């Protein structure tokens, strides 16, 4: 296993709109004065919901909003697994692969999705629509196999359900579950 220094890409613009900044300021206001850094995770989620991933530019803007050093934002963003630090597809399928889901076939399901979309784990389809990722326990153990996509859980999955799910996403019929 070789790990090299992160190659940072800055694709597309990730300039925050006034509207987004207003939402972030609102998140800050949930905490006492001087403790605004507490809102960082909410703010990172908001930025990711807007752009799909967290660019260095996004994180630097967040550092300014929170009045902290950029490294403090990088440290936090890289700790938590929900944040995508590289560009991803429009829809990211994060399939749970932990024990209880494995017992009901998540390994096979992940393989099926990869086969269906013709991508490996961590890869994005050529049309930029789907990224396949694995996730550790998502807290839906009794309803597996399951995946999450844009804050929405899809549970009790079967190959047939995956087929129709992919079609529904392709048609843009499924809205985000939150944010």
């Amino acid at each position: 296993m070789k790990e090299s220094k992160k190659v940072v890409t800055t694709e597309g613009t990730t300039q925050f709109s006034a509207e987004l900044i207003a939402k972030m300021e609102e998140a800050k206001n949930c905490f006492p004065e001087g403790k605004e850094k507490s809102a960082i995770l909410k703010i990172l989620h908001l930025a990711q919901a807007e752009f799909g991933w967290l660019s260095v530019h996004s994180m630097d803007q967040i550092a300014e909003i929170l009045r902290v050093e950029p490294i403090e934002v990088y440290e936090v963003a890289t700790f938590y697994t929900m944040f995508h630090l590289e560009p991803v597809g429009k829809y990211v399928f994060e399939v749970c692969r932990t024990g209880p889901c494995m017992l009901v076939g998540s390994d096979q399901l992940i393989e099926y999705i990869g086969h269906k979309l013709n991508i490996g784990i961590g890869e994005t389809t050529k049309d930029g629509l789907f990224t396949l990722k694995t996730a550790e326990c998502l807290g839906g153990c009794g309803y597996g196999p399951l995946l999450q996509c844009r804050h929405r859980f899809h549970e009790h999955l079967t190959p047939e359900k995956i087929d129709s799910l992919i079609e529904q996403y392709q048609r843009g019929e499924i809205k985000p579950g939150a944010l």
Partner: protein
Amino acid sequence: MTNRKLLLEHLDVPGIQGIDAYVKHGGYASLKKALQKMSPDEVVEEVKKSGLRGRGGAGFPTGLKWSFLAKPEGIPRYLVCNADESEPGTFKDRYLMEKIPHLLVEGMILSSYALGAKTSYIYIRGEFMYVLEILQNAINEAYAKGYLGKNIFGSGFDHDLVITPGGGAYICGEETALLESLEGKRGNPRIKPPFPAVKGLWASPTVVNNVESIAAVVPIVRDGGDAYASIGIGKSTGTKLVSACGNLERPGVYEIELGLSVEEFIYGDNYCRGIAKGKKLKACVPGGSSVPILPHHLVTKTAAGEQRLMTYESLADGGFQSGSMLGSGGFIVFDEDQCIVRNTWNFTRFYAHESCGQCSPCREGTGWMEKVLHRLETGKGHLRDIDLLADINKKIEGNTICPLGDAAAWPVAAAIRHFRDEFEWHVTHPEEAQIRNYGLIQQPLVA
């Protein structure tokens, strides 16, 4: 056995997510009772009497935990709800918050009153963002009704409740890591002492409680601590949400009275209805992935042949030699075709993935165990690897900053203790292990 429900009683009431239906079915009556008729100390006293034990997994008496809270003058105190439910096998809090969000909101206000907290926080795992929005709606409704904000029920008690998301980290379920995360930092558990009861959120005295524990305060105040304590057996009082999963005919969240037999829970018509597809029971992890696995002959009966019950004590009967733990109530069942080595590797991969990396035994030890187990599972192991695992285990257990090290060590130790032959089989039958690894037992979905 009767099956009283204290938390999920009104689960099927249409619209119970909303405040009107909730109030109509007795909601916020406990809050009103406490604020108008009870002193904060009396609420604490009822919780102590109830015998309620922390429902997040550790099982520490909630009332006692509350009584440790330091109360220096002029410094705010906080109540923080741990809604970072992430222990594999556990999905009860999500269920409760999603179905009856006001129960948690009422419990938070009530508990904050008992603790003298003017502001409280719910830290919910980021993956439950949609549940956060459900709870936020409930909080907004409670503000609109005057159950939150200033002078609640004319009692002079003011309270604000804030909900905030995590970002994907199991470790934030550890209370000091949660507090770090809530302060906007990496979820590194703190070195203790000091404990949160003295220095918690922003260095103020803080109590961190699990969702279910806080929700349970509502029926405790309504019926009294003694009534709650009359349910259950011995020191396992009240009801408990158990989330059942794995190879069960009917997995899901069940509210049980503590003391129900494990046999009834697995096979009973009101509960899981047996093993899926008519298969046989192979093993069970009764309290979330970190508790020791029990082989089939120790699931429904203890080593001494007594009936195993769903209580803290009975599940732990036999210690680590032949017992396990009630833990968080994440009840994972394995059918006869499941591979224990593969599952142990899977769990260890989870802990390696979730280690914060702060202290060396956990950072290096979980990763090491994962690699050794992966070799064993894929038929590339040696017999000496089994003893190596057992030894790595001992070097992690008890030597880490937080309990994640123990949580990672216990399942491996127990799997080797009870299923050593299966580990050895993977070494002596490498090719079969490879095949079994992927597809012999569960047919692949892709031909």
